[in-house]
């Protein structure tokens, strides 16, 4: 299988939104972050798609994996701890789409 490598579509600091999707089968994106927006904290590299590997297929070409940083209070409206607490989740590119204009990316020095 010689499918072309998938290039990263997002850069560090980009705002991204997790697709709000509930496909059947093996899914590697936690339910609680779907539909929410966060900021790309780093690009982890390219890896075979685990949602394909789960069925014994090769999962190629490898696709970019990102570590995305979310504000806890964005994920849980009733979050009562520190307002700047974050949670970081590693999410594959096919689960992400561009989000609206940056709302002061967390930790970004611009």
């Amino acid at each position: 299988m010689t499918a072309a490598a998938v290039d990263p579509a997002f850069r560090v600091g980009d705002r991204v939104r997790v697709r709000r999707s509930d496909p059947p089968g093996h899914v590697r994106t936690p339910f609680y972050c779907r539909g929410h927006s966060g900021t790309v904290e780093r690009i982890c590299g390219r890896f075979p798609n685990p949602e394909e590997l789960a069925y014994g297929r090769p999962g190629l070409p490898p696709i970019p994996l990102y570590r995305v940083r979310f504000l806890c209070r964005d994920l849980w409206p009733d979050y009562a701890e520190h307002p700047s607490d974050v949670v970081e989740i590693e999410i594959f590119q096919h689960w992400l789409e561009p989000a609206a204009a940056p709302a002061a990316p967390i930790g970004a020095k611009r």
Partner: protein
Amino acid sequence: MSGVAGKGIHDVGGDPAPACDPDDHPHEYWERRVDALMVLLSGAARSPDVAAASRAGAALLRVDQIRRQIEALGSRAYGEMSYYERWSHAIAGVLLESGVITTAELARCMEPRAAAPGGSAGAGS
């Protein structure tokens, strides 16, 4: 059941949870064997690069396949099985799927062991 469509039985991130017991949990011997079996079957013992091991044919299963099998357990089984019981069930499921073992072989291995020497006669050799 979580009651939320599209949310798997395993997908509990962010849900309310009881307090976590941070103490070390002793493991049964069979649980260590299940762990060792997983390492051997996934090729992790031969190479830290599981993907490379898989391409080289060293791996008979992927951890991703194990996760899928565990997620497919019914909510009752998922709730009642211990951690390594789920692993054991999932390993068997993947190996059956890929033809490494057959249901007949598995059934034979799961039959009650022959009586210990000196036990009741007539149980076969």
